[in-house]
């Protein structure tokens, strides 16, 4: 019950913010962050709980977006019905694709999901009613009362969807279905021999996951006032949906939420302050570092940090000595690199700077990780 209390409180706060905050950009950015919360949570149902990593998010998301767009163009359907229809369509896609591909082993399934994305994209490139390759322009209807701004309305709707998605994930996680999915993830053969109907459960997870992603996609054409295949079925959606739970933690519904909030916000920040490409680099590096060094994600790290530890005097003393040394070394190294890179960039040698950075950064991050780990684990 605590969950619902907090959820309603959060939703109320979000709605209130929609009326108080004037800066529209906050809502544009916030919409994207919340979108990834939904996508990450949905992804985690199949990818995290059942362990079937996949890159199929753009297919379900895109189908949902186009369902909304086409229904709006044909019947001027209100957004609520668009979302419902999108959920049904993408859920159906999840069901069919799942039945066809979930008998395959992990990596084959992952590649098959990329196939699904490309095939979906190809279908919509060749469907002229939906705009074909050039896309479809859409005129937004006026926002429903009491909202005066369409984007603020979308923001609140997405917040509600995020809570809904999390509620679904939480329900599945705590139920017998969740336990079955975890059994599949740990050992599919043993799960089958323990009476778990693995294919049925996987297809169920795929259907629910797809439906949620489709629902999240429906408002997209309204958000952009425009829809076209290349950006809608872009693999970057797969990246965010996959990286957020991997970074946040895949075992619990809180993981994708934390992961998406952190990652997506970071991406928005980097995108605006540095460059669009840099934000993909950030995701890539974080993904690799977490997958290697912190397999249980941020949640796992937090749980580890809060667990009781056998602290001894020597352990504490060692840390009191090492931490300042390492920080000093880090600052010194940072200063040296900063000066060096500044000098090189001024001379126009950007290639060298980027290459060295690229090679060093993952290694440094990894070392930083290991050090922090060591600090908290006597």
């Amino acid at each position, binding site marked *: 019950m605590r969950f619902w209390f907090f959820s309603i409180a959060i939703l109320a706060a979000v709605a209130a913010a929609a009326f108080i905050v004037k800066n529209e950009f906050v809502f544009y950015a916030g919409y994207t962050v919340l979108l990834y919360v939904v996508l990450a949570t949905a992804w985690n149902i199949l990818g995290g709980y059942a362990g079937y990593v996949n890159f199929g998010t753009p297919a379900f998301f895109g189908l949902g977006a186009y369902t909304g767009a086409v229904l709006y163009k044909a019947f001027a359907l209100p957004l609520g019905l668009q979302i419902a229809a999108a959920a049904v369509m993408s859920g159906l896609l999840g069901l069919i694709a799942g039945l066809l591909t979930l008998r395959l082993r992990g990596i084959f399934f992952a590649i098959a999901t990329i196939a699904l994305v490309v095939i979906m994209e190809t279908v919509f490139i060749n469907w002229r009613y939906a705009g074909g390759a050039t896309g479809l322009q859409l005129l937004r209807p006026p926002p429903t009362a009491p909202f005066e701004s369409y984007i603020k309305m979308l923001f609140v709707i997405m917040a509600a969807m995020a809570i809904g998605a999390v509620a679904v994930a939480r329900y599945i996680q705590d139920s*017998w279905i969740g336990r079955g999915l975890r059994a599949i993830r740990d050992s599919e*053969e043993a799960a089958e*021999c323990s009476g*778990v*109907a693995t294919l049925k459960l996987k297809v169920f997870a795929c259907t629910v996951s797809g439906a949620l992603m489709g629902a999240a996609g429906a408002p997209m054409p309204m958000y952009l006032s425009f829809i076209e295949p290349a950006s809608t079925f872009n693999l970057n959606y797969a990246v965010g949906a996959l990286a957020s739970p991997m970074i946040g933690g895949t075992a619990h519904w809180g993981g994708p939420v934390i992961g998406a909030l952190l990652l997506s916000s970071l991406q928005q920040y980097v995108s605006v302050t540095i460059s669009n490409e840099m934000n993909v680099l950030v995701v890539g590096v974080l993904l690799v570092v977490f997958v290697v060094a912190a397999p249980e994600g941020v949640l796992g790290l937090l749980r580890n940090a809060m667990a009781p530890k056998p602290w001894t005097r020597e352990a504490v003393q060692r840390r009191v000595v090492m931490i300042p040394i390492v920080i000093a070394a880090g600052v010194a190294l940072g200063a040296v690199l900063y000066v060096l890179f500044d000098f090189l960039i001024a001379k126009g040698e950007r290639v060298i700077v980027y290459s060295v950075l690229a090679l060093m950064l993952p290694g440094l991050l990894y070392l930083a990780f290991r050090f922090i780990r060591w600090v908290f684990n006597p």
Partner: protein
Amino acid sequence: MSAAGPLLQIKGVSKHFGGFAALSDVSIDIARGERFGLIGPNGSGKTTLINCVSGTLQNEAGSILFDGADVTRKAAYQRTRGGIARSFQIPRPFTSMSVLENLVVPLEYVAKLNDAQASREAMQILERIGLADKARTPSNRLSQVELRKLELARAMAARPRLLISDEAMAGLSGSEVDEVLKILFDLNAAGITIIMIEHIMQAVMRFSQRVVCLDAGRIICEAAPAEIVKNPDVQKAYLGA
């Protein structure tokens, strides 16, 4: 559902992996309530046969009948729900779950118990098998011996009519072997048919009423335990030509 008639009928089962024949035309009948031993050197096809019976693998030729019904095309989970349970030779615990939870899975999925009932019955099984003090331990922290006991416990939790134990006693000490044997004897006394695959000959001898020896995918001998060790083909299979 014939009261007479064998519980498990393996008829002419063959299984190939590429060009390699793992099983060739294997036929065995297992009677209800029987204690059956399956022996053979490494690579003779024992686990492959068990995989075909449990549904983990599909045999290309032949059929498998359980309690009179043809289960050859049935998925593994359907066979488990129908009453066939097996343990794995190399333990496959649900590593993200505690020992207790590992047993809750089959209890929920086969016996259709709710959370509370399943936990209770799981504890009972753990007490029988001697793992009760490890109930809350994550299963990825168990010793090899404890893992094998967990495998057997998980198979027991599926409330089987036919229990297949695949080398459950490997690495156990003498007294532990006795412990596990006693559990198997008790299960059999309660009506469960048991197939035991073992390399520990004294366990097979004490336990089985009938023994079959496999070699290179074929049955080379079927006899009472006392005779099978004297059989020259069996001796050749184990010691080499």
